[in-house]
């Protein structure tokens, strides 16, 4: 029966249901902690909602203006330097939590975006220009600049490694 329900709601439904069950159990075991968690949850939802709307807007525009063949040219095999530049700068510019960008990346992947560029985009989400002054105030300029240069370089190495291993497993 459980397997039947699983097939009906899909893996994402099972994932969500499991977490809701954990919340229910927490509510029974420690009501105060559950209430605090719901408060944290509400704050988190308010914080991510504008990003979710932004991602929806970008997805709509890419669906509207970019045919899959355009995506392949810009972000697919043979996209070369331009593809890396898009992925790295996109990762740096994009704001909000990393998981908010999974739907857009999943969509672009289905339409031909390379694994290496997705990995590079996600890696560069670590570099946030508005947060640079904060990092400088904690760790200083030399540390901040060195770290950011390494992160950009390693995003490429990481992207290439991910693609090699993912494709290696498919063959």
């Amino acid at each position, binding site marked *: 029966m459980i397997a039947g329900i699983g097939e009906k709601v899909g*893996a*994402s*439904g099972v*994932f*969500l249901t499991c*977490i*809701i069950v*954990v*919340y229910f159990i*927490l509510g029974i075991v420690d009501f105060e*902690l559950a209430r605090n*968690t*719901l408060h*944290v*949850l509400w704050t*988190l*939802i308010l914080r*991510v909602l504008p990003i*979710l709307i932004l991602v*929806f807007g970008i*997805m*709509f525009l890419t*669906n*509207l*203006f970019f045919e899959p063949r355009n995506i392949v040219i810009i972000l697919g095999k043979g996209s070369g330097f331009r593809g890396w530049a898009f992925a790295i700068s996109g990762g740096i510019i994009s704001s909000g*939590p*990393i*998981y*908010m960008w*999974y*739907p857009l*990346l*999943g*969509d672009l*992947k289905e339409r031909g975006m390379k*694994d290496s560029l*997705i*990995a590079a985009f*996600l*890696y560069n*989400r*670590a570099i*946030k220009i508005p*947060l640079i002054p*904060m*990092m400088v105030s*904690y*760790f200083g300029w030399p*540390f901040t600049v*060195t*770290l950011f240069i*390494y*992160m950009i370089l*390693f995003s490429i190495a*990481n992207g290439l*490694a*991910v693609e090699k*291993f*993912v494709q290696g*497993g498919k063959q």
Partner: protein
Amino acid sequence: MEFVNLDTQLQALRKTVQSFKRTLPILLGVILLLALASSLTPKNLYGKIFTGNQIIDPLIGAMVGSVAGGNPLTSYIIGGELRLQGISMLAVTAFIVAWVTVGVIQLPAEALMLGKRFAIIRNVTSFFTAIIIAILTVLILGWI
């Protein structure tokens, strides 16, 4: 500039809504999980788990950063506090880099939306590069 006709706009909107409907339960699940992890983790936990060992601490830093995750700003604040507590810069850097590049809590969502193999490989490689970046950064600044 040529305007896109209404039919094409509706088609694009329908496609976007379909994609979003598919991913919304996963996103909601991750948000629920993050809220749970955030309220269950005591704020003073981070300082207690480091050993003072130059080899083990970067590994611990990367592991804690991988499991925690969230806003990069939070990692800077915790990293700054850890530094004040005398935790090595190597461990703090590995912690900060892993915090944003590795996501154990988001892993199920990443696997469902970008593929299981991709998500696991990306997170594993990001974990190791967090340690390598920490070593290189601290070495080049002469902090070892």
